[in-house]
């Protein structure tokens, strides 16, 4: 790969082709790759690196899907299964009053948690902790709520939006391509459905993020196919706020033999994503899944977001993620600074709340 030429082309609005993206994944030159991605990231965001103060709420882990890679889900009545009541979640949420700008709410597909449940939750959350954005419900959950309520996606989203839903997380994307998805999570909605729901949300003014679960059964081509579909939809709607590549956590899941997550692969995936997804403003290194040291390193390879000072997160930790349970604001600021970047506290929509210049 001729990086000098690539740099020239990408800086003047040229796009990375699929073949080039695959070639970059296969490249041994992680230094040129990382430096180019860093250059492009700084072109978009200067030296700013974002984080958010948020609270994760996982309403329950009872899930009818039971994806094979997931260590979080349980059947109803199984040991370790739980389902919070709206009141329990409100009590938890109130403890974060004044400390956060976002609730991040995702859970399992539980027939007892339908449209009314979430509408009530959102409305009461908005009343109890006003001014905090609600980012909730992946496309997979929206699809499920639409099914059990017998309502169209568009109507479900409208009702949730009117109840207080501000944005949607990009989970459940996994890998779009069918032959991988069918082995990874056959129970889950197909990639086309995920993209359709996101498009519907974007058209209703609901911004979302997008993810990709990598490092399991997929090839580099499958990853690039995934990125291609995201870039195409983003060209159409502009509704994606950020892209978050999520390394598969092999511990405690059924999908493949347990081994550590590849640090080099995470580094490369962040960089290639930054270069390919030229219409995404932000690429996130999700420190909970990578550890804060590697996430920080990724800030030199195209990432400009570290997610948050996450309070309480169950899904990754139940999958065996070794990272700490939370980072304080001071720790995150210091990590960003020591990577040579400028820390910015953002809200859900990347509005800058505070800049440490």
């Amino acid at each position: 790969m001729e990086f000098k030429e690539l740099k020239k082309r990408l800086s003047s609005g040229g796009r990375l082709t699929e073949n080039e993206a695959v070639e970059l994944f296969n490249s041994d030159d992680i230094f040129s790759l990382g430096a180019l991605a860093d250059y492009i990231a700084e072109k978009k965001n200067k030296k700013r690196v974002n984080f958010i103060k948020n609270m994760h709420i996982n309403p329950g882990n009872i899930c009818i899907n039971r994806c094979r890679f997931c260590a979080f889900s349980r059947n109803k009545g199984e040991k370790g299964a739980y389902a919070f009541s709206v009141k329990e979640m409100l009590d938890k949420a109130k403890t974060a009053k004044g400390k956060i700008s976002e609730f991040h709410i995702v859970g399992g597909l539980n027939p007892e948690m339908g449209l009314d449940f979430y509408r009530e939750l959102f409305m009461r959350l908005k009343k109890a902790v006003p001014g905090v954005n609600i980012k909730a419900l992946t496309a997979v959950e929206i699809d499920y709520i639409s099914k059990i309520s017998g309502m169209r996606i568009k109507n479900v989203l409208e009702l949730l939006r009117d109840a207080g839903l501000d944005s949607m997380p990009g989970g459940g994307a996994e890998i779009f391509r069918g032959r991988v998805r069918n082995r990874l999570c056959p129970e889950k909605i197909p990639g086309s459905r995920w993209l359709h729901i996101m498009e519907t949300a974007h058209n209703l003014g609901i911004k979302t993020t997008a993810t990709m679960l990598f490092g399991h059964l997929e090839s580099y081509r499958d990853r690039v196919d995934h990125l291609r579909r995201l870039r195409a939809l983003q060209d159409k709607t502009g509704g994606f706020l950020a892209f978050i590549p999520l390394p598969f956590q092999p511990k405690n899941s059924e999908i493949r033999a347990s081994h550590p997550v590849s640090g080099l692969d995470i580094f490369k995936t962040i960089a290639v994503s930054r270069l390919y997804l030229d219409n995404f403003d932000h690429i996130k290194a999700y420190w909970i899944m990578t550890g804060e040291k590697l996430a920080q390193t990724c800030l030199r390879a195209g990432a400009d977001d570290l997610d948050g000072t996450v309070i309480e997160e169950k899904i990754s930790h139940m999958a065996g993620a070794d990272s700490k349970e939370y980072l304080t604001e001071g720790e995150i600021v210091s990590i960003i600074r020591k990577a040579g970047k400028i820390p910015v506290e953002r809200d859900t929509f990347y509005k800058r709340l505070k800049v440490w210049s």
Partner: protein
Amino acid sequence: MGAAEKILKKAEKGIRLTTEEGVELFKSADLLSLGRAADGIRRRLHPSGVVSFVIDRNINYTNICVNQCRFCAFYRKEGDPEAYILSDEEIYAKIRETVKLGGTQILIQGGLHPGLDITYYERLFSGIKKRFTIGIHGLSPAEIKHIAKSSGLSLNDTLIKLREHGLDSIPGGGAEILVDAVRGRVSPKKIGYKEWREVMLAAQSLGFPTSATMMFGSVETSEDIVLHMARLRDMQDIHGGFTAFIPWTYQPGNTELGGETATGVEYLRVLAFSRIFLSNFINIQASWVTQGAQMAQLSLRFGANDFGSTMLEENVVAATGIKNRLSLEDIIFLIKDAGFTPAQRDTKYSILKRF
């Protein structure tokens, strides 16, 4: 071309950097430029693409220590309810298990116990050698100084007696930062730079393989880090007795010194810089115990050619609350995944088995 780039070009040609150039480079070069240069030098020194590791276990025979360093979470004072000294039988049991798992060495280190003199080590080491075929990699310079003093022996006699009873090689622990101003703040009671150097040179002239370490991220400056490496490089010119350089980060948990640890980017910069600056060191180790699996893997592209050891047991870093564990299979996976050939080595870095 910036100053850092010029210095890197020089280093890449194999020309030794001065301390001043080292400071300039360390302070101003960006992470990926250092990484690229370090990776190139590593490739030149280790063209076969082998990444080695040793199967071993850390045995800490006692945590009683009169030095009581401020950065250490492991030591206890005599009489503390958590103070311990292992019995010979306990140590043998640990070694038995190590041998069973294919181990070739044990790292024996402990605190500076006021009641132990050379007779303890003579008995322990010959007892081990009588029972097992295993390398004894043990006793950092501070311990050796302590044993010499408590036994009324010269340094040379102490080393010779230890060797006669089974000591094979000496780990470079306790180097921390080899600048006394820093040592005064982090380990005021521990031997200074000159004594550390004296022990290592004496051991090397007797033919002991030794390693060299550096603990950074506490209170030292960039200049201190470079000076530390410059001093190691000078020592290495004398006997060539250091098998490897092993930098790791200060872990503040449960220590008197407290504060923060070095971040991932800082670790990789130091590691890469060490590969560039330590022109007479063949092997540089990654520290998965302090950095975790993913960063250790990345380290293989930032100058490291060795994954350290499997450490079937580790107590000192664990005492700070850091709990990174890797199995042999994990280590092999990480090395292969990074595009290298994993190989088990012995203490002297001879390859025993490729995977």
